[in-house]
């Protein structure tokens, strides 16, 4: 085959990919920008809630800033605002790119952003105003979900329409994860909002739901992004395609049974606890499969983390996924739960999952996606570096403090000779450390939001090459135009 012909195909492919990327522009920008707005709102709630442990008489004069309202406001804004909306933005871009077709249903998606933001506004104000439903993970009043559920359904509809127009035969594993998430997510919310639960069965449905929002809505989007971005940035194929199938089906079959482990030792039927513990342990299979697959893709190329912001955030997230999932499996065991359940250890675990895994991968994905749809580079590698180190150190400190403090709290709770107020006293330094770590993370979020604002406005000086932390050696990543050569989706079946 003459060389000129090959390069002509490459140019055509690159042009088409650019066209596909740009077709996603406004919905993706709208979802990511909205998500980031809710990240900032949620971060402010987070820091208020954390400081209230340190200063319990601070901001108590009115009900709307009391701890028990600010905390659910934090959770709902970061889960349904930040993670979900940014996650949909990332998933939308991945979906079009991997199906190699222009995004369809763009108006559905734009409509979805509007409804979603209205729902989030109602929900957040509703909680603060005293309309919290006090059901963990769905505290927002039903009026909020009346907007968010249709918004989620519209996203799924747009994805299905785009799927019908796909120009690939083979569906890359990220498509599996993303598509499944678009089915699981809306189903979970609708199923749990049915007005059929009360008492103890409600608590079971509650944790079936909350655990699955993590595992079947947030996690698959995170894994899908990692599966695409790690090989893409490295210019290497995924280590094993067969392993990725195994990982998907084991996740799909095992994860959704695990949630009731949140009620071990509680007034729920023994069989449900046992089932949940067994499936939690079985989750080791999909987790190890994904970990092996990602690790063997990266191995030998770790020095590239010095240069690529996307890679650094995503690999941080992928490693945290392994850590948090293995931790999760083992802490479902009764002897472990007896100590850690009801303590701040669990809060540390939750943030290791939602933050160190999911949020870090979303940051990495946004760093990859935005230049491609805006045709503009990130303004400052230095600020990206500050973002990475503030949130990286912040979450490290946060999780470490709560894991140690929570474990001490757990052992003290088991010893009836330790007075309760003594336990409260001993926990205080760890809660301060949490506030310090949290503050670092919040600083990072504002830096990230600033960078995002600048790239959407296309501010700063025009640059030609991609943004790296420092100039990458010649040929390490290939130029953007030449990334056709090593790209993964050109080799279906790999």
């Amino acid at each position: 085959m003459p060389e000129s012909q090959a390069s002509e195909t490459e140019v055509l492919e690159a042009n088409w990919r650019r066209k596909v990327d740009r077709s996603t522009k406004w919905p993706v920008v709208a979802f990511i920008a909205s998500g980031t707005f809710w990240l900032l709102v949620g971060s402010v709630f987070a820091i208020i809630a954390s400081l209230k442990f340190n200063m319990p008489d601070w901001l108590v004069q009115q009900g709307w800033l009391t701890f028990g309202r600010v905390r659910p406001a934090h959770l709902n804004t970061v889960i349904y605002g930040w993670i979900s909306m940014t996650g949909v933005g990332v998933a939308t871009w991945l979906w079009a790119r991997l199906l190699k077709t222009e995004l369809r249903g763009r108006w559905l998606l734009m409509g979805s952003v509007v409804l979603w933001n209205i729902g989030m506004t109602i929900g957040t104000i509703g909680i603060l105003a005293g309309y919290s439903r006090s059901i963990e993970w769905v505290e927002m009043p039903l009026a909020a979900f009346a907007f968010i559920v249709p918004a989620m359904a519209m996203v799924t509809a747009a994805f299905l329409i785009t799927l019908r127009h796909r120009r690939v035969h083979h569906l890359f594993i990220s498509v599996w994860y993303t598509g499944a998430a678009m089915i699981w997510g809306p189903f979970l919310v609708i199923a749990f909002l049915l007005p059929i639960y009360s008492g103890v069965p409600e608590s079971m449905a509650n944790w079936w739901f909350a655990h699955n929002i993590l595992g079947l809505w947030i996690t698959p989007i995170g894994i899908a992004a990692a599966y695409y971005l790690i090989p893409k940035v490295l210019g290497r194929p995924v280590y094993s395609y067969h392993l990725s199938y195994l990982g998907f089906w084991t996740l799909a079959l095992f994860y959704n049974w695990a949630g009731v482990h949140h009620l071990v030792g509680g007034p729920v039927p023994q069989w449900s606890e046992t089932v949940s513990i067994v499936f939690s342990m079985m989750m080791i299979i999909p987790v190890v499969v994904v970990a092996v697959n990602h690790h063997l893709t990266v191995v030998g190329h770790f020095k590239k983390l010095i240069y690529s912001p996307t890679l650094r955030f995503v690999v941080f997230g992928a490693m945290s996924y392994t850590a948090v999932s293995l931790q999760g499996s083992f802490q479902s065991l009764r002897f472990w739960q007896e100590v850690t359940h009801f303590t701040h250890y669990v809060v540390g675990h939750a943030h290791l999952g939602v933050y160190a895994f999911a949020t870090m991968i979303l940051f990495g994905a946004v760093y990859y996606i935005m230049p491609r749809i805006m045709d503009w580079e990130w303004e400052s590698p230095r600020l990206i570096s500050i973002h990475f180190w503030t949130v990286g150190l912040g979450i490290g400190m946060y999780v470490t403090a709560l894991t140690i403090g929570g474990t001490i709290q757990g052992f003290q709770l088991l010893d009836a000779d330790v007075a309760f107020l003594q336990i409260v006293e001993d926990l205080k330094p760890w809660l301060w450390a949490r506030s310090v770590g949290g503050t670092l993370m919040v600083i990072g979020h504002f830096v990230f939001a600033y960078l995002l604002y600048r790239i959407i406005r296309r501010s700063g000086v025009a640059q030609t090459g991609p943004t790296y932390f420092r100039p990458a050696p010649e040929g390490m990543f290939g130029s953007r135009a030449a990334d056709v050569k090593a790209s993964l989706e050109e080799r279906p079946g790999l």
Partner: protein
Amino acid sequence: MTRALLIFMGAFAAILMSFTALALVPSLQLAAIEPTEGTRNYTFEERMGKQIYMRDGCMYCHTQQVRPDGFGSDMDRGWGPRGSLPGDYVYDDTHQLGTMRTGPDLHDIATRQPSRDWQLAHLYQPRSVSPGSVMPAYPYLFEVKNEDEVLASEVTVPIGGEYAPPEGQVVVATEEALWLYEYLMTLELREQEE
């Protein structure tokens, strides 16, 4: 389409199974659960009090589930005469089992601390009765009034020490604080006869 259909229908089938087993079936079985001895439906005031409990998110620091004997130290701590049972919750439209014990379990608080003065003082300013507590104060559930303006029907709350109101003033419980107290007093576990 077939391949995509297979993947996504498979994913849907997987979640439908656990939904049925963990959410639907237990709810259908609820009809068979009898209330435990001493468990009765809420009065209007108690129900309003539960609304306050939920509105202000007490659940984020207090559980309402006593662990059974042999699992944890709840009973040694005097948090209840027995582990909590499904029948304790049959009148809870919204469960408040909770997942965190920054504060102690409350499922048997009515037995442990029935004093209205103590409960109201603790809500007004936790550190006035529990030094070192990190529980938020809830001054907005109370009014600080001049002594001579207090009506006979109002409930005053004795607060001493550094948190006492200024000379000549007293702390008066609002309706909401009293409702919340009424609700807390429904949280009582009794030994069950076999």
